[in-house]
């Protein structure tokens, strides 16, 4: 049986990614909302800061990278939650499906969606709204995809603690908003109360924002930037591992 274990795992991951994307396609309204809302919000922001283009330039690029984090967190936690009462999770757990293959399948599917989402948002922002960044626009999109996978991994993890879709939706303001407020997007972190600044170091979005800001402002990405990337990847892997632990083959 060992001979087939490896390709079977890759096949299960690929099949899961395809299945999740097919499910998503069956819901065109959700797809439209996922792909277009960030671009529309970006447009809104552009005209809110009509008189302060430099503020739009400062916030725009990080936001392209943070939108996918928020949407993927929500979409993943709810999609995963639906597998539990539906009995499909239990069915999968009774099959030769490794937990990490299942989670990787989810990750692959939502990373693909995030890439399209960030691509559209960036395209609209850079080409139509005149967003100006010092660094590379491609780097902004790449970081956006990374943040999406981080959001997905955290969403998978917290979905284990939600017993209804209402609860899962409430995890968004509970888990995501504090990170958004503390990451430095609204106020530079060094200007916050020192306890909050210290707390911000414990939150993964802080590092995601820092990397994005470095690209946007054209400051040397350097070791700090790469350290940010490593933290984001590390937290993603940790959340996936913890997510795998919350998937139980046997339930009471």
């Amino acid at each position, binding site marked *: 049986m060992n001979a087939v274990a490896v390709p079977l795992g890759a096949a299960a991951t690929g*099949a899961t990614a395809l*299945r999740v994307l097919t499910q998503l396609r069956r*819901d065109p309204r959700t797809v439209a909302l996922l792909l277009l809302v960030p671009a529309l919000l970006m447009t809104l922001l552009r005209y809110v800061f009509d008189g302060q283009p430099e503020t739009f330039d400062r916030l725009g690029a990080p936001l392209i990278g943070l939108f996918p984090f928020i949407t993927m967190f929500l979409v993943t936690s709810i999609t995963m939650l639906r597998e539990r009462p539906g*009995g499909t999770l*239990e*069915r999968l757990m009774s099959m030769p499906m490794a937990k990490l293959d299942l989670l990787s399948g989810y990750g692959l599917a939502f990373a693909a969606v995030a890439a399209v989402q960030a691509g559209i948002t960036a395209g609209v922002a850079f080409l139509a709204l005149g967003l100006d960044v010092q660094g590379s626009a491609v780097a902004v999109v790449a970081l956006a995809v990374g943040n999406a996978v981080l959001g997905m991994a955290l969403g998978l993890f917290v979905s284990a603690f939600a017993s209804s879709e209402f609860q899962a939706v409430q995890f968004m303001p509970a888990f995501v908003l504090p990170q958004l407020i503390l990451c430095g997007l609204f106020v530079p972190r060094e200007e916050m109360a020192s306890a909050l600044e210290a707390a911000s170091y414990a939150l993964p979005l802080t590092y995601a924002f820092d990397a994005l800001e470095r690209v946007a402002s054209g400051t040397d990405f350097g070791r700090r930037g790469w350290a940010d990337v490593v933290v984001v990847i590390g937290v993603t892997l940790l959340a996936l591992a913890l997510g795998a632990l919350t998937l139980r083959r046997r*339930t*009471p």
Partner: protein
Amino acid sequence: MMSSARPNGAASAPDGAVAVRDLVVERGDRRVLHGLDFSIGAGQITGLLGPSGCGKSTLMRAIVGVQVVTAGNVRVLGLPAGSAPIRAHVGYVTQSPAVYGDLSARENLRYFARVLGAPPARVEETLTTVQLADQADRPVRSLSGGQRARVSLGTALLGRPQVLVLDEPTVGLDPVLREDLWRSFHELADDGAALFVSSHVMDEAGRCDHLLLMREGRLLADLTPDELRERTGEQDMEQAFLRLIEREAALA
């Protein structure tokens, strides 16, 4: 994944396809199964009968390996229930259909076939077996209850399982379809599979090769339908079961 792929020791498992020893299951502070002890033979249909709430589903979950067990042990095909090498050889159909409602029957089967490592041709074969070829491309959500149940059953048949655990598979199905399904169950058993079918409708007992009668988490009897008729002097299965309970009560 033909029969040559059966896990080591499966063919010569001394206790038959499934061996349950002193199985105790507690859910919360309630004892659901009180030390069950029995075996299920390959090549036959074993019916699990008893009133709703008597622990049938919990017992089936323990055999599939998705139930947390308090004490005792369950071996399937000679290995601990739910262990990795046998997962591809055990099919499980839950009471409510565990399939993706937003996907079609064909998409559901295609996905689970990939997870199981079953050849793609098996999907079309299975659609024919469960008589869904005409409805294969409609979203499962839009199918009737009976059709949804058949998608779920098809999923369990994909891997040509050697042990097929069916939790109330014929509830809500019309008589013609029930007849057809029982015929295919017998064909599977004739091919050497062990089928374990639960029902709370006693008239299905006559269709089984062997019966386990259960009440309040205990086994009342482990016998063939003929033995049940003989022992109770009743031809009607419903009456026979009631007679057995009366006797049990008289003894207590």
